[in-house]
């Protein structure tokens, strides 16, 4: 695994302005969907973005892929600033960054055959000229589909098979980074495992980097190297998978992990410590002052409302350890505290 940085995102921000009529007044407001986040993805690495609905995961993936333009911050791909490139200039980037979609039913054009769907990016980029068909069949084989099905329509495939076609399309242009936006959440649980294993296999064989957006913590643990936990448009905790799952420091991460179903309870082992969050996620139009999580946090004190906690290493030992071992672990809480007993020690085999 090379240490070369592929994608560098700095202070990324996306505010959606909107106008609303309240009585006789016109009120201008902004939805702060993504409010200043930074992360990097190195070659061949996988970053997992987790968080509740509406925390800005999908907006982040739309910004990174430049389907949407950020209101502030920078996105660098292989050292090149792509933050404000125009559609035409993005052509080159489109080859290197591909996307896998959540819904395999709307991501494939029902009027085109599999062969046509997969050869379209090849034709646009002039790849494998004259040998498109062979390449398409190779791609189908790569994702575990029968290459003879090249002339079939998407409606003839099941959800899992359609998702494989979507994956094959992303691979067609030999990208370096794939953004997967909840790629398995629309599939049956039994099929999820197959598709995840396929993604893991492809990642290892082709050396791909991934940004993996998901709300399923189990899937993220299985697949990712680094994890960023998002809450209301901010990253609240960021670090190696092992750290996040086994020694989470931010109360929100702890609450998320605690909320995940635990097989041990079913086995009769005494339930671990449970954290129950109260209340709803506040509106991103008018987020709480200071720490955004304070309205639902059991540790909240006065300072949490006054000062926004920065995303830093929790302790001095932690930062020396991170320096020594290379595993960064950042969190944004005024009162970080390690909890180690939230997740059972049953490691998934990758």
């Amino acid at each position, binding site marked *: 695994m090379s240490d070369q940085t592929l994608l560098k995102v700095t202070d990324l921000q996306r505010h959606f302005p909107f106008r609303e009529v309240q009585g006789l007044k016109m009120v201008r407001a902004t939805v702060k969907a993504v409010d200043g986040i930074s992360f990097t993805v190195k070659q061949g690495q996988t970053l997992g973005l987790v968080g509740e609905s509406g925390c800005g995961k999908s907006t982040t993936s739309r910004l990174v892929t430049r389907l949407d333009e950020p209101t502030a911050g920078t996105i660098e791909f292989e050292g090149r600033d792509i933050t404000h490139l125009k559609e035409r200039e993005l052509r080159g980037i489109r080859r290197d960054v591909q996307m896998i979609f959540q819904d395999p039913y709307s991501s494939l054009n029902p009027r085109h055959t599999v062969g046509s769907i997969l050869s*379209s*990016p090849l034709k646009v980029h002039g790849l494998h000229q004259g040998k498109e068909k062979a390449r398409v069949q190779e791609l189908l084989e790569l994702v575990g*589909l029968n290459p003879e099905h090249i002339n079939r329509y998407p409606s003839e495939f099941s959800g899992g098979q359609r998702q494989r076609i979507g994956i094959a*399309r992303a691979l067609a242009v030999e990208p370096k980074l794939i953004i997967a936006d909840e790629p398995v959440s629309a599939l049956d649980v039994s099929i999820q495992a*197959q598709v995840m294993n396929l993604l893991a*296999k492809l990642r290892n064989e082709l050396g791909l980097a991934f940004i993996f957006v998901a709300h399923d913590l189990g899937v993220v643990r299985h697949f990712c190297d680094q994890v960023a936990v998002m809450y209301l448009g901010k990253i609240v905790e960021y670090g190696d998978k092992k750290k996040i799952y086994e020694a989470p420091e931010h109360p929100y991460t702890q609450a998320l992990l605690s909320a995940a179903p635990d097989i041990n309870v079913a086995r009769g082992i005494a339930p671990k410590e449970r954290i129950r969050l109260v209340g709803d996620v506040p509106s991103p139009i008018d987020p709480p002052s200071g720490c955004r999580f304070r309205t639902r946090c059991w540790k909240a004190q006065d300072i949490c409302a006054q000062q926004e906690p920065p995303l830093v290493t929790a302790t001095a030992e932690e930062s020396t350890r991170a320096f020594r071992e290379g595993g960064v672990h950042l969190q944004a809480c005024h009162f970080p505290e390690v909890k180690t007993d939230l997740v059972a020690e049953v490691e998934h085999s990758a």
Partner: protein
Amino acid sequence: MTTTPLNDVMAEGDPAQTSNVEQVPDVERPDRWWQVVWSSRKARIGIVIVAAYVLVAVFAPLVAPHDPLDSSFTPLAGASGENWLGTTTDGRDIASQLIYGSRISLLVGLFGGLLATMIALVIGMISGYAEGTIVDDILSFITNVALVIPTLPLIITLVAYSEVRGVWLIVGVIAITSWAGGARAKRAQIITLRNRDFVTAAKFSGEGTMRIVFREIMPNMSSLVAAAFVGSATGAIGAEAGLAVLGLGDSQSVSWGTMLYQANAQGAITQGLWLWVFVPGLVLAILMTGMAFINFGVDLLSNPHLREDA
């Protein structure tokens, strides 16, 4: 399709088998579009009717017993072996006029419908794909204006003030006065299609806007386009006849509308020439009914819920 037994069974949920090739059972292909249209009894009737009209129009010189403009017959004759539907006040054969008149109606229907559909398609697609931009605002405004202008008075005014009176003028005028509704529908349709993931995926493939609009999106609205075409063709046929009845038709050619105009002007009803009045009106009504029936079949394409078990 060759299948090795090893690959044949794909135990769901067993990740160990993911490297195998998944087999897709040979499901029945969805019906092709003509099968869907043909499956509707109404559409079958409509197709037969329109096909009969098309055959008559194409082979008019063979079918018609006389030249429609030949005025050498006995005026005001009743139906006979020589003149199947009798003759007009100036001695022309009504049956031959009727047969040649189908050419004008179908021509206006075909080209008026095509032109109106094309204008609607281009304006609707651009406006829908550019939703929310100034381009969309301008095109939507034009569409709205065209929608609220009363069509018939506008057509009459345009035709009355134009110097030439030909079929092509009628086609053009009908097209530019009847595209707005179709453009509206297509704009709405493209807005829903534009946000589908496959359009985003096409962007990721590096496809340009034109390619996305015409290759990715348009095939998904072909049934809507077909329905709009049949609808505007029907409207165009009716509009042509209406204009001709009002005396705004092409006086050089014979159409059902001009026949009705002549019949009215010559006082056919007071003279007891019922066939002269009713037969052109009847064939026109049957043709438009046939086309409306075809649209029942086309509707099945865009809305599968309507498909009957036939």
